[in-house]
């Protein structure tokens, strides 16, 4: 019995270096993370330990040296993080888009909006119940950008019609569905979300909803103990063979992410 306990606690693979990778909830919740990691581990010998965290927390973990690399989708946060010296560089590698999710009957009438900015303006005017990630994630950053196009981020309405959950994408979707509210989500997470009930995509397609994902290895200068070699191997694969894995990932016949690494 003691031997079993020890085994379960250690679970160390023989040999190969392990990569600690923080990746955003949208990549995990869609199911892409599992596929990517399985393909990578099969192709190389490395082990990837994925810690699921919103972009904000993921970048913070990288800055502290608690992970070796980060996959996130918050371009402004990422640029700042690289500029601060915590990460050696930023490598864009895939994109998809955000979509606005709302109740079946779309009470705020945003499906007819001409642009994403106008959709958010209509939400504001109608004081429609809106669920925000509120967690400095990539999705949260995108949401804030869209509010700013028609005024300030409605923090003053926080707790009334603007509800900040501070949780991951899936948890926020659960809350939106349960409360009959609107929210913004990446397309992939929504596609794989199993608790949609009566909610649907009520607005999509505006280029402003473009969602870029990037890979950021933690700086080996700032944190000498990070697995820089393993991170470099993963990056090489992600920008190489990994691109076709991303391209092939579908749910119900729909491709959810588009590879766009620049060599």
């Amino acid at each position, binding site marked *: 019995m003691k031997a079993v306990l020890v085994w379960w606690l250690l679970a160390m693979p023989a040999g190969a270096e392990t990569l600690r990778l923080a990746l955003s909830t949208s990549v995990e919740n869609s199911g892409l993370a599992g596929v990517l990691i399985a393909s990578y581990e099969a192709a190389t010998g490395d082990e990837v330990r994925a810690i699921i965290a919103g972009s904000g927390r993921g970048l913070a973990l990288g800055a*502290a040296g608690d992970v070796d690399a980060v996959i996130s989708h918050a371009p402004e946060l990422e640029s700042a993080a690289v500029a601060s010296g915590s990460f050696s560089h930023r490598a864009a590698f895939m994109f998809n888009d955000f979509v606005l999710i709302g109740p079946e009957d779309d009470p705020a009438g945003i499906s007819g909006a001409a642009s994403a900015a106008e959709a958010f303006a209509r939400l504001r005017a109608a004081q429609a119940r809106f669920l925000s990630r509120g967690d400095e994630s990539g999705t949260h950053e995108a949401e804030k950008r869209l509010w700013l196009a028609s005024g300030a981020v409605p923090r003053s309405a926080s707790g009334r019609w603007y509800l900040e959950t501070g949780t991951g994408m899936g948890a926020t979707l659960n809350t939106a569905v349960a409360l009959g509210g609107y929210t913004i989500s990446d397309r992939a997470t929504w596609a794989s979300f199993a608790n949609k009930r009566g909610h649907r995509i009520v607005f999509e397609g505006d280029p402003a909803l473009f969602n870029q994902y990037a890979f950021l290895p933690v700086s080996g200068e700032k944190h000498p103990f990070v697995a820089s070699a393993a991170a470099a191997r993963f990056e090489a694969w992600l920008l190489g063979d990994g691109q076709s894995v991303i391209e092939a990932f579908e749910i119900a016949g729909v491709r959810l992410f588009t590879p766009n690494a620049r060599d």
Partner: protein
Amino acid sequence: MEMSLPLADLLDITLRSLAVSVSAVALAAALAIPFAAWLAISRFRGRGAFIAVLNALMGLPPVVVGLGLYLLLSRSGPFGVLDLLFTTWAMVLAQFIIVFPLIASLAHQSLSDLWQSYRDLLVSVGARKGQRALIVIRDARHALLTAILAGFGRAVGEVGAILIVGGNIDHLTRVLTTAITLEVSKGNLAFAVALGAILLAISLFVSVALHVLSKTEETRPW
């Protein structure tokens, strides 16, 4: 997208839950019970305040323990070199910290009551301090087992601290409570319920064991 976890993963998660919590509780009990015995039979200045603090630590919020431990174990923190973050050892440590005051406090209450009865006898027959401790521990064993089971119940149902220091990494640090959180966040409510049923079964087993033990304690005072 996975609609359900294969049986192997389910077993993996359940066994890890048990392994982490059993380890944490075993470690905590091994230290807390002798400590509680020492405290019960000792008299020193400030003992009352010491006991009050110990009892207060029972109410330490688990998630605060997780946060504190994260700051200590982070690579940017004082114990970063140990490389314990995002391992099951960090989870065992977190649960140990949460459960130690609980077991120590409950054990102390029982051992202290027994010491009240035994004190004059054991001093009179010349028992040394170590002998006194062993005698009260042995005679209070039912109550001590109850304390241990209570600690296990608290540990196996904990989620906040181990999520922060463990990271809920698949096949490495994922346990029942953190897996439930993840499945709920994916909207896989049916599966989350299945995991919850397993956790509930474990908790019920512990509760029933506690109940049976306290019954035998009543009818057979020794």
